[in-house]
């Protein structure tokens, strides 16, 4: 089994340093392609460990208003899946930051799973997240992703029982995306009540080669500290980043924001090296 390179390495390094990964999201093409590149570099400079790059889709049912509007801005720019791959190739010229691509299933299906997987691999993408592709529908995708060495990131949620978590883990690679709350994406003040119990329930079910990243509604240092303390290997910050971009944040300021969050991933990490 081929494993995506940068991603596994990065998690390994972080573990050595007793840090969790800061996974930051950008919508490709929002507000346009060149600025997505700038923002990506800014995030990296600020210390983000992994870039989650969203491909815009017209009907993003799992997303809240912030990400939906970002997708619409990108679509109005005429940005599509191939442009997202283009951004990755550009980034790769100067960066070894792990990149996971997030796309709804339909654009992938339209291109063809295999040709999509091949192009991702050619662009040195590390993994793919497909929010409307549960494992039951993912058999052929899992094969393609395996074949082309892409991490297969699936979700677990407060609704997913232990048996189902185990099965999901079996198809997964890279990391498991833990949905910390009921609802769509979007920054919230507080961590959902469901987050920590869920983390504590799921943590023991994970195979050792699968990392655990927590997302949905995370935007502040205290939130990050809580989940990292409870055992997360990574935290995903999406809407909070995208909302700042929508407000026209400068790349420098975005760097600073990332740096601030990154700090939180370091402090509270319990020693899990014996895991």
């Amino acid at each position, binding site marked *: 089994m081929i494993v995506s390179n940068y991603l596994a390495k990065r998690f390994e390094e972080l573990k050595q340093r007793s840090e969790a990964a800061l996974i930051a999201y950008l919508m490709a093409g929002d507000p346009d392609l060149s600025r997505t590149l700038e923002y990506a570099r800014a995030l990296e400079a600020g210390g983000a460990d992994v870039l989650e790059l969203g491909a815009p*889709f*017209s*009907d*993003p*049912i*799992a*997303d*809240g*208003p912030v990400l*939906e*509007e970002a997708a*619409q801005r990108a*679509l109005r720019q005429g940005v*599509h*899946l191939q442009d997202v791959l283009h951004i990755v190739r550009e980034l790769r010229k100067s960066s070894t930051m792990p990149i996971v691509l997030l796309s709804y*299933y*339909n*654009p*992938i*299906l*339209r*291109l063809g799973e295999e040709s999509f997987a091949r192009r991702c691999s050619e662009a040195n993408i590390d993994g793919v997240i497909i*929010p*409307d*592709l*549960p494992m*039951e*529908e993912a058999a052929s995708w899992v094969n393609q992703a395996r074949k082309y060495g892409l991490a297969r990131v*699936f*979700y*677990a*949620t*407060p*609704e*997913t*029982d232990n048996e*189902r978590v185990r099965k*999901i883990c079996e198809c997964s690679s890279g990391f498991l995306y833990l*949905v910390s709350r*009921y*609802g*769509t994406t979007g920054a919230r003040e507080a961590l959902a009540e469901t987050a920590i119990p869920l983390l504590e329930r799921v943590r023991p079910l994970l195979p050792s080669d699968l990392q655990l990243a927590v997302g949905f509604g995370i935007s502040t240092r205290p939130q990050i500290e809580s989940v990292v303390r409870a055992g997360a290997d990574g935290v995903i910050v999406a809407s909070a980043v995208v909302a700042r971009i929508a407000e026209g944040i400068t790349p420098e300021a975005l760097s600073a924001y990332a740096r601030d969050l990154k700090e939180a991933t370091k402090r509270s990490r319990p020693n899990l090296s014996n895991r």
Partner: protein
Amino acid sequence: MAISSASKPSVLTPKLAELPREGKFGEFGGQFVPEILMPALQALEKDYLTIKTQARFQNELKSLRADYCGRPTPLYFAKRLSEHAEGVQIYLKREDLLHGGSHSVNNALGQALLARELQRRRVICATGSGEHGLSTAMVCALLGLQAEIYMGATDMERQKTNVEQMKLLRARVHVVTRGSQTFKDATNEALRDWVTHVKDTYYLIGSSVGPHPYPMIVRDFQRVIGDEIKGQLLRRGQRLPDLLVAAVGQGGSAIGTFFPFGQDEKVRFLGVEAAEAASLTQGTVGVLHGAKTYLLQDEHGQLQPTRSLAAELDYAAVGPEHAFYKKSGRAEYIAVSSDEALEGFRLLAELEGILPALEAAHAIYAGVQRAKKLKRDQIIVITLSGRGEKDLKVIYDRQQLSGQAI
């Protein structure tokens, strides 16, 4: 094995399963939803299959269908329309006479009863023309459930009276101002609500779309249309029809019409789409709102805007069972333009004194055109899926626009 070779499916009769295998009709359907909904969908399938077999549930459904909704609906022999169509016998299945004014209540009632059995008192739905929203509001009032209805701002504007009615029924109506502000976007919002409240909320999908088990459930509740047609023709001493015609938006009324005749090889099916939203006749395979089906999408897999006059047909996807019927050749699908539908509307109004829903007017137009090509003694049944009152404003505005009577 003798039996299996005897039942070898011909092209015209692919295996139409009551219970789709792995949630799929052939390659179509499935459950393309966020992980958080999967346990709910799996539980729903299981619970539905159990509850469906319970006599108490079936009896209550049957009794409310009859006394509350007004079933059976008549099968009306349209004499003057038949004469106009040069002698073919045209029957109309009068779903327009149902409580609420369309076939939509068949499904809403069934699912609301299901929601009550599952002890969900909060019911959400998305609606296009407001027809499904209205039916949902009605049955929720009837059963003491709280209805929350998502509707696009554009649709609200063109279907104001439906919105007023929902409010009078004490449903909460949420305006959707995102995206194209029509049914597709209302569905996105409803799904987002469901993702958020999946524990205590029943999502009442309005047609045979969405992730499994919805297309199956909706079809089960709508098949009463076709079951009645069959019984009514046979009781009149008629033979089975040569052709069934139904409008296809998402496809609920059409699948309800066709399905019970699935194994009757000689009965042909004609599904009629709006030319301005013709996912089956002009679309390509994709995944939207939980199911693999035909979509109107661009080369990048983005959904395309639709613009039919008929709000309920104005949707870029279609129920997966129709996708299967199309691919297998069991049904034929054609597209009829809004202008042609208005001609169908006019025909039915002037010849029969019936004002059809614009959606149904597509089927009327197509049925009459097709009738002209058939032999005199053939039997056509057109599903008159709803009445036209809801569309008066749209028709009136169109008349103003074109400066003439339709």
